[in-house]
């Protein structure tokens, strides 16, 4: 498997979004993670999954290692995975992950502290002018604040949202803090489709944690 890693750093107005690709010769090209960046991209929601689903906060908490309120602070590190496919007889993209760093501002559950910086992997990336995502969750933009229910990734110091749109939610401050994601109808909720937002668990979170 071939993996292309790109550091997505904070340079404003990347003039050549098409240069922000995963080709080896452009591995250090930077793209700022803000509204302007995403506004210039074409969205491609790739793949469709069978995943673990949670119906209650109790279920979510049992399957999560930690739960925090956090703010996205750093550049995203993107990995594009290519694999040889015998049908096409060439390498094709099979997965994309972006590692986003958050700073913990409030601990709801688990062995973690305020001020800790956590890397959260999310299943999306920018390739050749396209935002390609396998995730129901929208990408995070610098300054975004969310409630996260997280699991540690095996053999890694990274975390993942325990179950996609069942495990990342807005806070009371999110509406005023978070960047507007131009490619999503459920941007304030952090999802591409409002139908994917788990309103039931969200209400339980608000009632229990007052976030």
């Amino acid at each position: 498997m071939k993996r292309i890693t790109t550091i997505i750093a904070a340079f404003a107005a990347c003039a050549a979004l098409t240069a922000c690709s995963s080709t080896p010769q452009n591995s250090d090209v930077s793209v700022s993670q803000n509204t302007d960046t995403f506004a210039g991209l074409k969205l491609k929601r790739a793949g469709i999954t069978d995943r673990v689903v949670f119906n209650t906060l109790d279920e979510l908490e049992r399957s999560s290692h930690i739960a925090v309120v956090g703010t996205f602070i750093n550049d995203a590190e993107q990995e594009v995975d290519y694999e040889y496919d015998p049908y096409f007889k060439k390498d094709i993209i099979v997965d994309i992950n972006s590692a986003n760093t958050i700073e913990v501002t409030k601990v709801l559950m688990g062995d973690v502290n305020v001020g800790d910086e956590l890397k959260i992997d999310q299943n999306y990336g920018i390739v050749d002018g396209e935002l390609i995502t396998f995730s129901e969750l929208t990408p995070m933009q610098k300054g975004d604040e969310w409630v996260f229910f997280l699991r540690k990734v095996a053999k890694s110091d990274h975390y993942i949202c325990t179950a996609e749109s069942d495990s990342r939610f807005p806070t009371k401050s999110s509406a005023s803090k978070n960047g507007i994601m131009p490619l999503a109808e459920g941007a304030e909720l952090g999802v591409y489709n409002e139908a994917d937002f788990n309103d039931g668990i969200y209400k339980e979170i608000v009632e229990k944690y007052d976030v």
Partner: protein
Amino acid sequence: MKLKKYAAPFLAGLLAAVTVTSTASAHPYDYWQRIYLSKNDANIELYVLYTAQTELLTKENVYDYAINWNNISSDVSVSVEYQNTILPNSNGKWIVTGREFKNTNLGRMNPYDASGNLMDTTPGVNSDWSYVRIDINVDAEAFVDLKNGLITPSKLITNARKTFLHEVGHALKLSHPKQNSTLSGHTVSNGRPYAIMNQGYVRSSSEAVAPDIAFHDKVCLKTKWGV
């Protein structure tokens, strides 16, 4: 005789009634429109790579069940072959491969265009797929449902098999049913139909996830591909 005179129209009407009834519970976004490039109807030939074959994910426990999608719609045919050479030799078949997902995905279906580019699966975005690749999580722990009582090999196999059949359903262009109690047949778990095309683990029959292809799945398949 009078009985013979009326039998044919009666049977035709009965067939029409059954057909209408059987398609009544398929809803918009239960399936993608369009078909595939260079394929006749939904004749799917799958090729299971070594990477997808584990102690849990075996031919007998999981992959042979793909044929359960047969004999529902006359335009749907699913067959499975297995890699048995060091280098895969799929001969144009669609790949089933194993993957260690970083997240809690149990499986994933990726459609591609003729050039090997990922295609858009947004609900309502409809296009002809050239190729489909199915990834199954090779971490057996992914199929452990902590909420379903004692963890047994049987339950692991049920969940793994369900995931594979679910992904084959996606390859046949069926999508996840919407959660909406106003839709016909959406009578469990706050507005879902009982179906294998729901995401998640198999639990009790009062919950929405079916361990095998259920009535709602069959209706959607026939609505999509014909009776």
